[in-house]
């Protein structure tokens, strides 16, 4: 099919499976849509932190989209953003308390970035672009999928940073005591570089694949290229 992806999208309503998997890879929030960058770079110093932040965001995303979708006919257009924000802030507060109750060490590690999930463009963006127009079940499925895709993206970055910068993976030391950790990887610049590294890898792979199937542009390619020129588009 040579029509651009957005048009193909709206032709037939996506089924449940497509709803769920949309955010996992094809429109991965971290690498394709480039949304929710603040926690992505700040918290991904280890695989465990990345997964925890990803799951916390997934919960907020799913719960908020569920409630927004449930109340969608009740919320007038004028106050929709404010209402979505209040709903999102509520579930972020819930997650904040939950993490404190589960593990204080985790809470110290994630710190203020849990509360900053409120400002995560991904959550507000999905609420506005999708949950406000869809029924609760598809909206929540989609949100969970997006959240899991986000978690995957975070863990990919966090895993590399932990392996290179601390010589461990999920806290398990990988190399012997003689290993000199590449400390910059667990510092702020490392976040930028590792994310750039992954995107570069995907760009190279895409180019090779495009050269191989000369002519037919894959949907990953077109949507990724479109998104990589900016950030925070929301839809």
């Amino acid at each position, binding site marked *: 099919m040579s029509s651009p992806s957005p048009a193909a999208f709206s032709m037939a309503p996506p089924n449940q499976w497509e709803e769920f998997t949309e955010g996992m890879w094809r429109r991965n929030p971290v690498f394709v849509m480039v949304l929710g960058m*603040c926690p992505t770079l700040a918290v991904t110093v280890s695989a465990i932190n990345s997964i925890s932040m990803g799951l916390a965001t997934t919960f907020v995303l799913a719960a908020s989209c569920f409630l927004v979708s449930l109340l969608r006919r009740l919320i007038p257009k004028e106050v929709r953003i404010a209402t979505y*924000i209040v709903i999102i*802030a509520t579930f972020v507060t819930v997650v904040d308390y939950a993490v404190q109750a589960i593990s204080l060490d985790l809470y110290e590690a994630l710190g203020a970035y849990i*509360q900053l999930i409120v400002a995560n463009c991904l959550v507000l963006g999905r609420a506005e672009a999708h949950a406000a127009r869809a029924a609760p079940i598809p909206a929540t499925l989609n949100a969970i999928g997006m959240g899991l895709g986000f978690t995957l993206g975070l863990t990919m970055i966090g895993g590399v940073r932990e392996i290179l910068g601390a010589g461990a993976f999920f806290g398990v030391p990988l190399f012997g005591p003689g290993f000199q950790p590449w400390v910059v990887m667990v510092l*702020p610049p490392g976040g930028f570089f590792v994310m*750039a590294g992954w*995107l570069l890898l995907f760009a190279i792979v895409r180019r090779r694949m495009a050269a191989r199937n000369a002519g037919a542009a894959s949907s990953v390619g077109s949507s990724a290229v479109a998104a990589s020129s900016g950030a*925070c588009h929301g839809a």
Partner: protein
Amino acid sequence: MAHESLGQILLNTILSGNFVLAMFLGMCPFLGVTHSVAVAFPLGVATAFVIVIASVSAYLLNWVLALAHLEFLRLICYIVVIASAVQLVEMFVKKHYPALFRALGIYLPLITTNCAVLGVALFQTAREYNFAQSLTFAIGGGVGFTLALTLLASVRERVQLADTPEVVQGTVLVLILAGVLSLAFMGFAGLGG
């Protein structure tokens, strides 16, 4: 209460603890709007202004909430105040600087979801700054944010004229540039004691 001096806070937030390059707050505009200095700088200033308003409001709000033992409403109250402040700034810019309003487009209302604004409010509460410290923190944060945005924008403008491999263009290049900038700012560590 924290024991940092105002000078220390100012130096820290602008340089060694720069909101964007060290604390990763405000990534969306940092990566999205820095294609030209003419847009990046005014957005930085607008955000800095909102940050200061948010900081002052957060301090007062926190004081009131503490009196009423309603701390668990803190996050919601902060974000509502920020949304209102952005709304006000939007109306002001639209009325007095219409050309700028059109140039900034959707990025002006997006200041509401800018982690830097909410981050200032949350961090100053966590560090238990008093009013003077909070205000300095906010001003320093705003200046640092504008500085980082403007620096990246000017570098990007120059790089656009250079010959870069196609595979690297776009977000990859911006991230690499940001990483180098962040690395440079690490050299300021320990400044201010």
